[in-house]
């Protein structure tokens, strides 16, 4: 996900060389920017596939006990979050979401939902959000652990290659100059004013911080929180349990980060679309990214 973000600075020389090779269009220059790691797109595709399967099989696993707690043990009467169903004395059953003791009716989506045949089931997340669609903790676990391995191996290769090539340091660590102008950049983004000219060749400071947050925080922590749920890991590395303040807390952190990643992907895809969807997609797949002339814009 993080690797295939189309444009990267990619080293000034490559950009210039690319610009010479690419046929310039009127009012724009064609930049040739090798995808980071020479395979960013394929890393990204593996990541998108893994994260989708991990999310959906994860929701399947969550459905086996659709409640979250803090600490080491499950205080069944006081969950942080619970997706349950209610059968009123007279009337049809309802889906109920309880968050910190507040009950919200969520019939049809959370707590109680219909499968593709129209039959209503008491289940945390609906059948269209889980893998497999029907309730099967055993199969959900098979999918989850298989793709967790692929995701971790793919991520480790990306990070090691990114460190070796300097991509992570060069493209993702924001400069002091950029950090000082972060307010201005944020304001520009809110107005959908995107960088032009040389500025568009590189990740802007908001992108850098978002990607850094995902790469050095969200992804490693979600993996560690997942591993903390493994009793064998906790025996080998009891520190894991201490760091997360208990196994149930680790489960809650794992759940929250999964949705934080979903939010990241949604914002990411939104920005790809509003900042020029074809240009971005082309740059991801081919490395070519058209740059609008900054001077042209100024006129």
């Amino acid at each position, binding site marked *: 996900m993080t690797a295939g973000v189309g444009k990267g600075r990619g080293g000034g020389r490559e950009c210039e060389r690319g610009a010479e090779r690419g046929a310039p269009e009127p009012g724009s220059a064609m930049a040739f920017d090798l995808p980071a790691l020479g395979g960013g797109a394929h890393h990204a595709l593996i990541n998108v596939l893994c994260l989708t399967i991990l999310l959906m099989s994860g929701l399947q696993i969550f459905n086996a006990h659709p409640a979250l707690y803090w600490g080491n043990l*499950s205080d069944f009467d006081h969950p942080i979050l619970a997706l349950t169903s209610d059968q009123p004395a007279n009337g049809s059953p309802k889906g109920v979401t309880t968050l910190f003791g507040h009950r919200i009716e969520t019939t049809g*989506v959370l707590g109680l939902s219909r499968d*593709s045949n129209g039959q209503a089931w008491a289940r945390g997340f609906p059948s269209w959000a889980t893998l497999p669609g029907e309730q099967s903790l055993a199969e959900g676990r098979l999918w989850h652990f298989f793709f967790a391995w692929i995701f971790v191996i793919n991520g480790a290769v990306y990070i090691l290659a990114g460190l070796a090539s300097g991509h992570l340091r060069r493209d993702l660590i924001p400069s002091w100059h950029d950090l000082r102008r972060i307010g201005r950049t944020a304001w520009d983004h809110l107005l959908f004013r995107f960088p032009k000219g040389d500025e568009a060749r590189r990740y802007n400071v908001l992108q850098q911080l978002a990607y850094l947050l995902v790469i050095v925080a969200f992804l490693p922590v979600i993996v560690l929180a997942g591993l903390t749920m493994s009793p064998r890991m*906790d025996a080998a590395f009891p520190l894991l*349990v201490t760091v997360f303040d208990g196994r149930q807390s680790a489960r809650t952190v794992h759940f929250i980060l999964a949705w934080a990643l979903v939010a990241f992907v949604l914002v990411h895809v939104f920005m790809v679309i509003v900042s020029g969807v074809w240009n971005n997609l082309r740059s991801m797949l081919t490395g070519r990214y058209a740059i609008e002339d900054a001077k042209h814009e100024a006129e």
Partner: protein
Amino acid sequence: MALIAERVAGATGTLGTLLLGGCDRLSDDPTVQRMLGSATRLTRVVQRLIGGTQPLAPEYTEADLSPHFKSNGTSDPDDDDYQELAANGFTDWRLQVDGLVRNPTKLSLSDLRAMPSRTQITRHDCVEGWSCIGKWKGVPLAEVMQQAEPQPSARYAVFHCADPMENGNPNTKYYESIDLHEAVHPQTILAYEMNDKTLPVAHGAPVRLRVERQLGYKMAKYVMRIELVADYAHLGDGKGGYWEDQGYAWYAGI
């Protein structure tokens, strides 16, 4: 509001079903399941390599005990023989230890209580995701096995239990297996006490297994017989345990 949400969910659901019908079919395919299951075997090897051989599961204090320890699976075996044993306070109960051993034995509850014991406050992790903390006292399985003198060909300890189960043939009772590596771990005990009281029926009386580095379904309740075997191919459907035969992984360390 809820109605609109339901409509939207329905529409998304139809789309999702089209996309995911393929995944569901894959999920039911035995070859795909074997491929996906290979990841758990990898997990087992890696967890043993990086975690040293026999680290102890974390132990807790009295203050951490669950006020209500959930009873999962069977809570009162629907079996006449078992009910008769329970009515007599399990004085007639004998733990049979046999299979690939030189010295097959039958042990009463007082025999077990006379053997060395271990007390531990540990976290019970269910495959469903919840955890409870309980205090267990029992005899290390290693002591019981030592007395029976395992033969060199023994590789697994199989637990035959008293509780009848829904799936399988009508006479199916709970069964589970662990390897000898796990069987001789210091925290692997046959518990006869829970939270300083005689083990209640809801939690597996007279004796339940504690395998603290694995999930709850490995910790057989109502243990009647321990059989040492070279492999578990002939046990149930051959996957090594009741839940394993329903599709769960034999290795439950994750």
